[in-house]
């Protein structure tokens, strides 16, 4: 059996690190890569895509004063975080 484990990154670890650094957008991108690699279940991919869509529609903080006003994005970000954690837990579950 091939065990070239050095080639296996730890994408969930990268996601946690990015979240620790407040990099929600990058964490979502990594989540998408992780799901595409780790799961062949279409529902997992669709959930990651929904999270990404939610982020761009409601969870992204305002970048400048010129951008359209967005209500406090924290409640939406909180929901996004919870969904990220749920998806990570689901992906880890079959192995655990």
């Amino acid at each position, binding site marked *: 059996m091939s065990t070239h484990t050095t080639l296996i*990154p730890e994408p969930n670890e990268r996601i946690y690190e990015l979240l620790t650094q407040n990099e929600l957008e990058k964490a979502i991108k990594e989540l998408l890569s992780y799901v595409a690699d780790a799961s062949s279940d279409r529902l997992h991919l669709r959930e990651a895509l929904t999270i990404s869509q939610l982020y761009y529609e409601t969870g992204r903080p305002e970048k400048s004063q010129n951008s359209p006003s967005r209500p406090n994005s924290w409640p939406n970000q909180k929901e996004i975080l919870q969904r990220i954690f749920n998806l990570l837990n689901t992906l*880890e579950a079959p192995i*655990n």
Partner: protein
Amino acid sequence: MEDNILEIGQKLKDLIWENPLKGSEELIFFVKRHANRSSLRQMAIMLKFEHQNAQNEESRSSIMMQMIDLIEDVIHLYNESKLKEEIQEIEAKGQIEANYLSQKLPSQRETVCACDHIRKSFKRGGFQLQDVQFSIDLGKIVGVVGENANGKTTLFRILVGELKPDQGNLRFPALGQPEWNKLNWYKLKNQISYVPQDLPVWHGNLKDNLHYEAATHGLTGEANEDAVDYIIARLGLNPHVHKKWNQLSGGYKLRFALAKALVWKPKFLVIDEPLANLDIKSQVVFLSDLKSLAQSIRHPIAVLISSQHIHELESIVDQVVFMRQGQVLYQGESAKLKMLSQENVFELSGDLNWQEIQDKLRGFEYIRMENAGLGKVIIRTPLHVGRKEILQAFLEHDIDIHYFRDISQSTKTLFYENS
């Protein structure tokens, strides 16, 4: 460590009261180190976000109390021998996961493209691509650097089947064409994606174009929908999906071109000078996305990329190919250049008077100093004279610089070699 955890926990509690922002970050590391349990790490991350977004002092205090409780929980769990066993178990499962994945994965060591003694000459202009040899593996990124008009685009066009070489051999083992020059370009082109420097204009909106591109490569129905939605989200194009060509900035046109190139999951991506029109922030995002996508476990891609932005490129590539006058002068890891070299090379600039800097550094041990123009100076020193020594010399001799870089491990040194 068991004896220490109480002490560390106490220090962390103090930090949370003194500097909640830093404390909340340290809390995440503390949880990871002492109780590597997903639910606890997730709780620590959530508390950090909650604290940052708390609207008033009362909420902030309440969140800080929850952080303190979490520290207590971690200490309690850590001290239970059961948890230690769990950690060992999780580590063992991590190994199982790694093994399980490696069984399913394609080998990333497989060579996607190899070329051998490739030559191409053009009657007009007299340019010749001479004797090019190199190879690229799945999951790897190779950067091609060199001054303008040194054969990079010609080489790329040969590798994607747009130009026929005059001499030499090509093969694409990972694309099902392992024998030299026995190539079925129709099949190959369905696995190779080429993004030229001048991006073609497209019509309609971004999303429809991606659906069309995926469909032309055989992706239909749900597979088409998933592939398009995935690449849009992965490249952060969501806010632009309904935009047309003339509504996108140069940076987003390039990101769209990348999405179009990758939506059908090619195994070999060739991308010519993508950084030319990107600002620094966009370059970083673009390159980090490219690296992440290339290293996908399930769908690794070999990426061949050219750019004049050497330092940015070197930050993501596995190997660099340096070309001059149609020849490959170097292929390998840029860090290995230093091992081949007998000198250190420093690049600096400032309000420097060429004569003055030479006078001031008289007595300093260097091999050669070159005036690269526009206030830029290249200094070559023996290997035992490093960054520290040269910066010390600048301080001692009051030489004012505003840019300094050790380029000893960069292919940039090759640009300064005599041509």
